[in-house]
Every structure is written in structure tokens, then in C-alpha cells.
């Protein structure tokens, strides 16, 4: 196993790519009772158009299949449900779907190996029937309706719709009641066989184990399956431009919710960590808790807590999201744009950069407290081609010139959108 060590957080990463293509990562945590394992496939809601390895023609499936598959994986041929089986073992099991990956996980203090048996068994043995697929449509339908009532979710989706012309990131991960009605067991099997191949999957384990032993335990639970070669994913050509500058929806909220989105271009894997850090620093300098703009907006009673500041990216898209609540979202937007242009003129204060760098460094260190956070972080980053330790190294070296450069490249008014949810 290859070993990568971070002297900063005093943690080690063991990594091995098995013959069948599966990548296994392991982060030992001595003295911690909690054990966490997460098994993910590089397959999310964005992957609805692709070429199955060995085939020539494109396959296109309804939106929401990745998430639907996640729900259906638990059902077993013998009538049991793996989520129940895992829960019976006293472990805390779950699964989730994002834009670029789907993951199955459990956390436990006891019964790790019996639970690993079950996890690796159900992820490798799908069982879909016409009947069980139909039943799931009711449950997922309720999930979709639940999200319909979440203004936080709506303000987010509307932002993406305002930024993206074509890219599927703009669509709801769950699909819609309409799209999921077209899902059947054949579609599920086709997507399963394509994307749940070991070569498209990564498993991350964190806990108090011996590295070689845990690797052996995983190997002996793998069924015989060959690596199936590269899956070609087809994403539409996404123009650099935004769709519309503003989008507004009425919902029953006491205070308007807003998201400012800034559309960015795709960045090379080699540079993405550095760029991500630079953007975090810029966002904190502009609108973080210690910023001038935040204080002004707070003192004017326009904003009541620090907006969440995020940079999201994966294959074929990248964007910044600034989300908060305000009495006057339009004014916040104007003030934000003004702060950007002021900062472009005056440059970013070096003391501010250094102070924020320290702060972000500490935040990265804190990520290493909990096995669950660690494993999830390594998994999600790996599907983006990132080794999570790199953040701790890059933050030390990222410099003022680079930050200024990113600032000029990314923070442009013609790439910004404002999404607002307010009462009718």
C-alpha cells in the first residue's frame, strides 16, 4: 500500500488500487472507538448521458436515476432490506447522492465485520423488480415534495438555473415526479452495470485498524468482477455566459432568502486546490465575519448572520455561492458588487490575507477530528481528482499574486446572478 503522510495534522493515508480497479483508502485513527466506512461510485445526478464501455451509441436516461438507484440498492432478493439488517447490527447506516457521486456508508463501534459483510454484499448485488421500483416512486415522490417546501433548496436550484444553460448540475438531484415516473428496472440495471464497476468506485475506511489486515478483509468480500474500462460521460456544451441575472420566486418566508451565484470556468485538476483556497480567502476577505462589508450590512440591519460562502465544482462546472437572509437582497447584491470593484482597485490587504490564511488553516485541521468527516472528505475529494492533504500544503504556499489573479479572473459582474425567495 502506498503511504502518504501529513506532518501538519499528523495523519497517514494508505492507498491501494486493486486489480479489479477498486481504489481503497484507509486512514488509521488510534484509540478511537468509532469506525467508519464509505463506499462510493463516481456516479451522480449529472451523469444521465454516457456511453457504456464496449458500446458505440450514447445512452440517455431520465433525470434522477442515480438517486433512485441509491434508494433501491438496499432491497434484497430474499425480501430483506439491508438498511434494516445493518441497523439490526447496531450500526448507523446511510447513503446519499450528490451531483457527482453516490455513497453507501456505516458508522459503528461494534460488529464492524458483520456490517462490512452486509455493506459489500448489498452494493454488489442489486435486486430490482417492476413491483419494488413502482413502490419506491411513492417514497421518492414524498421526498421531492418535502424539498419543494424548503426555501433553502429552492433558492439554490434557482441560482443554478440562472447560471447554467445546459449543464445538468442545474437540475434537482432527485429528478422530478415526472422524470422518475419513466424509470423502470431495465434502466436501473443498465446504470448499475455501467457505474457500479469496481474501477469506477472508491472505498474509504477510517478507524483503529491495521492497514494490511483491513485491506485483506475487503479483498475477500469482493465478488469476481473485471474492470470494465472507461465510461465516456457526455455533458452538453455549456457556454461561459449566464442565463439571466436575476431570478425570484415567492414562498412563505418571514425574511427573504438570497443567493448570489458567480459562474466560473472548469479548472484543471492540478490547480483546483490552490484555486479553491484562493477563492475561500477572497470570499472571507469580502464578506466574512471580520470583513468591512459584513459589519456595514449588519449595522444597517440588512443582514443578521454571516452568509454561507461556498465554492462548488466538479466535472464541467464550477461556481461560487453566497447564501443568506436579508431584508433587502437587492441592496446586498449592489453593495457586494461595489465591494468587489473597490477591492479590485485597491488590492487585497496583505495582513487580511495572512490572518484569513491562518483561520482557514485551523479550519482544515479541525476536519481531522471525526472519522466520519475524514472519510467523507477523502471520498468526495478523490472523485474530483484531489488528495485532501493537499489543502494543508497549498494553503501555506498560496500567495498574494495568485490570489489577486484568481480574483480578477473569477469575480466578474457579467458572471453574477442573484436569486431571491420572498413572500408574495
Amino acid at each position, binding site marked *: 500500500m502506498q503511504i502518504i503522510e501529513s506532518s501538519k*495534522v*499528523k495523519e497517514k493515508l494508505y492507498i491501494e488500487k486493486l486489480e479489479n480497479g477498486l481504489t481503497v483508502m484507509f486512514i488509521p485513527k488510534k484509540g478511537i472507538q468509532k469506525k467508519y466506512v464509505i463506499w462510493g461510485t463516481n456516479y451522480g445526478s449529472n451523469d444521465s448521458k454516457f456511453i457504456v464501455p464496449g458500446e458505440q451509441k450514447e445512452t440517455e436516461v431520465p433525470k434522477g436515476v442515480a438517486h433512485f438507484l441509491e434508494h433501491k440498492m438496499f432491497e434484497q432478493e430474499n425480501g430483506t432490506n439491508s438498511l434494516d439488517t445493518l441497523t439490526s*447490527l447496531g*450500526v448507523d447506516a446511510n447513503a446519499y447522492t450528490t451531483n457527482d457521486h453516490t455513497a453507501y456508508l456505516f458508522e459503528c*463501534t461494534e460488529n464492524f465485520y458483520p456490517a462490512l459483510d452486509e455493506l459489500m454484499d448489498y452494493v454488489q448485488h442489486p435486486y430490482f423488480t417492476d413491483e419494488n421500483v413502482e413502490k419506491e416512486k411513492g417514497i421518492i415522490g414524498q421526498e421531492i415534495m418535502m424539498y419543494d*417546501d424548503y426555501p433553502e433548496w429552492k433558492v439554490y436550484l434557482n441560482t443554478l438555473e440562472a447560471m447554467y444553460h445546459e449543464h445538468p448540475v442545474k437540475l434537482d438531484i432527485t429528478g422530478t415526479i415526472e422524470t422518475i415516473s419513466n424509470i423502470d428496472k431495465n434502466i436501473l440495471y443498465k446504470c448499475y452495470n455501467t457505474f457500479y464497476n469496481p474501477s469506477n468506485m472508491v472505498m474509504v475506511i477510517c478507524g483503529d485498524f491495521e492497514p494490511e489486515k483491513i485491506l485483506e478483509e475487503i479483498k475477500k468480500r469482493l465478488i469476481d468482477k473485471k474492470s470494465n474500462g472507461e465510461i465516456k460521460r457526455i455533458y452538453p456544451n455549456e457556454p461561459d455566459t449566464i442565463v439571466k441575472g436575476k431570478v425570484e420566486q415567492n414562498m412563505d418566508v418571514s*425574511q427573504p432568502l438570497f443567493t448570489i451565484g458567480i459562474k466560473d470556468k472548469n479548472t484543471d485538476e492540478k490547480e483546483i486546490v490552490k484555486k479553491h483556497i484562493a477563492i475561500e480567502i477572497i470570499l472571507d476577505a469580502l464578506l466574512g465575519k471580520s470583513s468591512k462589508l459584513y459589519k456595514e450590512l449588519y449595522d444597517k440591519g440588512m443582514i443578521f448572520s454571516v452568509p454561507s460562502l461556498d465554492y462548488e465544482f466538479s466535472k464541467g462546472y464550477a461556481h461560487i455561492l453566497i447564501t443568506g437572509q436579508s431584508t433587502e437582497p437587492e441592496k446586498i447584491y449592489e453593495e457586494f458588487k461595489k465591494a468587489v470593484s473597490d477591492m479590485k482597485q485597491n488590492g487585497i490587504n496583505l495582513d487580511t490575507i495572512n490572518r484569513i490564511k*491562518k483561520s482557514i488553516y485551523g479550519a482544515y485541521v479541525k476536519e481531522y477530528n471525526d472519522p466520519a468527516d475524514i472519510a467523507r472528505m477523502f471520498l468526495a475529494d478523490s472523485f474530483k481528482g484531489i488528495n485532501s492533504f493537499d489543502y494543508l500544503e497549498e494553503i501555506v504556499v498560496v500567495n498574494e499574486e495568485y490570489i489577486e489573479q484568481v480574483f480578477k479572473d473569477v469575480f466578474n459582474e457579467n458572471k453574477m446572478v442573484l436569486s431571491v425567495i420572498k413572500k408574495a
Partner: protein
Amino acid sequence: MQYIEKQIKKGIKLHLIKTEKFKTNLIAVFLTLPMARKEVTKNALISAVLRRGCKNIPTSTQISQELEEMYGASFDNGIDKIGDNHVLKFYLESINDNYLPEKNGKMLEISIEKLLEIIFEPLIEDGKFKEEYVQQEKENIKRIIAGKADNKASYAYDRCIEEMYKNKPYGLYKYGYTEDLEKITAKELYDYYLQLISKCKIDIIISGNINDEVIKIVQENENIKKLEDREPQFIKSSLEDKAEVKEKEIIEEMDVTQGKIVIGMDLHLKNKEQKYIALVYNAILGGSANSKLFQEVREKASLAYTAGSIYIRYKSNVFIKCGIEIKNYSQAIDIIKKQLEDMKKGDFSEEELQNIKKGIISTIKSIDDEQDTEVTYFFGQELSIQKITIDEYIKKIENVTKEQIIEVANTVTINTIYFLRNFRKED
């Protein structure tokens, strides 16, 4: 992990949780007092005003900058309702010196000092809190109160509690009341604050890779020295005599797509041992993916995406919560009531019981793998009539039997059914 308690002064206790599991040190200060209508709003306002600045760091911008310099130490504060107590909570989390690029060995000491400054050395102008901060924070709390209904699920839960505990401390809203806010002046608030810190229960909990020197640091802190002995009037969780009430149904309408059901239930427990049995009862009823509610309402009837229950041990209540399609309301209620009946009859296998217990025990065992959970656990013990260690806690769960659960199940009565639905079309 090693846990040590040290009485600093009467009513002021220091708790040390020595652990090497984390890269951070977490300091928590809890100010506890009984919930009272005339005080809740003031408490909420004090909590908000204190975070704006203190004597030595007078603005929140400066506080934030200092924290950033401390490698992103995070300060957080808020208020909570725990049983019939109102708790003002203050936290500061900072990186342990071992993981800092430049070590000076003082990070913990500075962190303790800053946190205590924010709480006990506020910014005072002309013998009162800074007027501007008080006015702004009044507005903010008004907004929080007005925003209660934004999250429909938590709103439905709050409303159910309000209905169950009308005119009782536990029915009070932790952020207080808009009509009370108006009247509070900066002077009054400061006078009340002085009274509060002189009579409330104070717990200081410090977790991390620390040693006994911390005791000295706390004892010799100027702000701690200023505090006097007190006879704190907090309320320990006990068994309440619950009157039998007639089941009531409350239906409210709002602009929602999904309906929210919250059912508040009373547990008429005989002794404190039954509190642990009730915990297992709740886990079987609605506390996990294997639970009756999840299986029957979500999986079998496909009626809901969320279906579960929570147990409030401080008040001996179980609350069932479901998000359902509105037209399925009566069907859902029928299925839920059937589950309550099945629990009374003991319609669960010995195997299911053992499995559920394993799940609970696993959660208990991981308490000391999570820094904030561990802090919360020890503070919860402080407010309980019976203090137990994590090992004793596990034993108690292990010893729960099916017969005991049936006995508890038969004490359960529905107090209030609350349903939040969409507007009914008018004819």
C-alpha cells in the same frame, strides 16, 4: 478519557474532560436558570448582546479578527431550553498547540481568557449595555421570532409543545416574545444581567489534551475571581406527575405542499429507572430505520419520507413526527395509533429488542469520540437527578427487558395531535 469535577465556588463548577482524541480544545460555559416568562426574552437578548463585543474587544469585527489570528478559533453562543431550564451557552474551540505551525503553548490559556471576557466583562457605556447593540439585537430577535414558521417541520414541533405546555415553563419559546422585547431598555437589561450572573448556575467544561494546570488558569482568572458564591435555582429533571388529559387535536393551515404531523405523548413513569426503559421504548417505536413508525408508515404504506419519534427524557415525553401527503392524514393517524397499540401488546420480538439495544449502546459508546457530544453529555448529567458514567449508562440499557418496555408502553397517553396542512379550498 478522564473526567474531573472541581467546585470553583459555590454554584460554579469546573469540569475537565481529558482526552487525546482531538486536534482541538473545546471550552464551554453554561449559565443555567429556571425558565420564566418574565425572563426568557431578556436572556435571549443578553446572549445576543454579549457576542457583539466586550470591554477589551468592543466590536464583533474585532472579536472575529482576534479569532482568525488564533488559527480560526471559533466562538459560538446561543440559548437552549433543557427541561424547565433556560441555558445560555458559550463555546470557544481552538486548535491544540500540537497542531499549530508556530507553537507558543498559550493557545488554551488565551482561549479561556477570551471566552470569559466575552461573558463576564461586557462592554458598558454610562452604566448600561451599549445602546446601539441592544437596539440592533432587539431587531434581530424580533426577526428570529417572526421566522419561527420558516422551517415547517420544526415549527410544527414547537407548536405542538406550546399547545401541550400552555402557561407552563416548558411551553415558553426560548427566544422569547416580541411584545416583551419592546419594553426592555439597555439599562434594565444590564441590571438584570448583573443579577443573572450573580445567581445563575455556572458550569465551565473544558475538553481536550489538557492537564491540571487548567484548574489554576480558571481559578486565577480575574473574571472568575470577581464572581461570588451562589445558591443556584436551576431545576433538575425529575419524574413529573402528569395529569391524565383528554387527547386534543389541533389543525392549522399554512402555505405548504407537505403536511406535518406531530403527536405529543405523555409517559407516566413510576421511577427514574424507567427513564432508561423509555429510551428503548422510543427507539423501537420511532427512533431508527428499524422502528415501527419508519417501517409501517414509510416503507410499507409509502405514506411518508420522514416518520419517527424522539424522546425528551427531561420531560418524560415522546413526540412522533411525520411528513405526509395531506390527503393521507387520517390514514397516517390510524397507522400510527396502531403502532402505539402494538407496543402496548409487546408486538416486537426479543431479537428486535436486542438489535435496538445494540444501536443505542453503539451511540453511547461513541459519545467520547465526539468532543461536543461529550461536553453535552456531562452537562446533561449535571442537570439530572441521577448521575451515571458512560459505562453505567450502557449497563442500564443492556438490562432493559421486554416486560419492562410493555409496562412503560402502557403508561403512554396521547396528549396532543398537531397537524400542519395547506389551506383548504373555500367553496
